[in-house]
């Protein structure tokens, strides 16, 4: 479900419209559409919540925020890639090979 800028502002107590505009301008949030007609997908809404929490509850200021977001985006990127590799193995590799991979990974990552 898509959400407009104005609705999103009312959803988060204390979210300053200027701040959200700034986050969009910095491409920390990337809604569809243009200024005045932004449309936020669910992931954009969740990301605004997250940035708001980073700012307000975790005291990450806007100087440090891009570093945090960049690292976070890389973590999720890796998670999606690893998931894709897992799915690819599931489709291509025989069951015994998958089991062997799974065992070896467990072995190598045991702390």
């Amino acid at each position, binding site marked *: 479900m898509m959400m407009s800028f104005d609705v999103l502002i009312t959803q988060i107590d204390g979210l300053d419209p200027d701040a959200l505009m700034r986050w969009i301008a910095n491409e920390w949030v990337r809604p569809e559409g243009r200024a005045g007609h932004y449309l936020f997908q*669910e992931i954009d809404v*969740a990301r605004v919540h997250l940035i708001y929490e980073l700012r307000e509850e*975790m*005291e990450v200021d806007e100087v440090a925020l891009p570093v945090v977001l960049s690292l976070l985006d890389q973590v999720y990127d890796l998670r999606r890639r690893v998931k894709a590799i897992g799915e690819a193995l599931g489709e291509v590799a025989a069951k015994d090979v998958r089991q062997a991979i799974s065992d070896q990974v467990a072995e190598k990552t045991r702390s």
Partner: protein
Amino acid sequence: MDDPYKTLGVARDASQDAIRQAYRKLAKKHHPDLNPGSAKAEEQFKKIAAANGLLSDPDKRGQYDRGEIDAAGQERAQRPSYREHADGDPGRRYSQGPQGGWGADDLGDIFGSMFGGGGGRRPSASYRSDGDDQRYVLTAEFLEAVNGATRRLTLPDGRVLDVKIPAGATEGLVMRLRGQGGPGSNGGAAGDALIEIHVTPHPFFERSGQDIRLVLPVSLTEAVLGGPVEVRTPRGPVKMQIPPDSDSGTELRLRGRGVPPSKGKAAGDLYATLRVVIGKPDTALTDFIRDWKPHDCLNPRVKMEAVP
């Protein structure tokens, strides 16, 4: 429900400021979006958020301290989970990785030599493993796919495979040749060769399921007087009778002349759509038409005009 003071690690007489500080410190550590994949962090964060919800509000905190309410039911409103979206396909929106998927080099960066990058460790030889399935693409001519054919395929490792394309094969059909893939190691079985068929289009045949369609050009004489014409079908030419006064666009069916029957599928039909070709200018025809007074002065666009 745990004691919210213990959850936040503060004394019962802690100031509101100290509670806020404690909450922030713990939220930084346990926020579920910052700890994807850790169910423990998520559980912990829920407790912390609930404890904070209770103690950060001086009224509620007072009620709790006096024993008027308990700590249950203080979970804060469900916030949308960024993790849930970012782990799935929508997460690509904020991807920083290489665009358009990872190649062997990108994978090699993480996985060493396993995906074709140079160097790295040799795979351990200590366990039995079956060979990989190997994928190939075979491009077949339209008629090869319709009628079936045997094609010789030379694999990158020099092996030669005779691939039998079944009659009625469709675009994207994958054939599995057992044991023709990569060799197994330590006694593992060889993998399979998976051969995907791509069908090239035909200049005039078009396939629609088991049926085949073509546009059949006919002369004015053939259209008006009718008569036998020769039609190409996937299995050679056949004679077909054109009824007299056949219009352009008339569809004639040749039963059973489409895609031949294959397991579970009956033979298809061939549909020929007539297209009248007037041909090169002919003064005799032009003169005839000019002097021609049709019985019925029909407007062929009358149906079209009836549509608003």
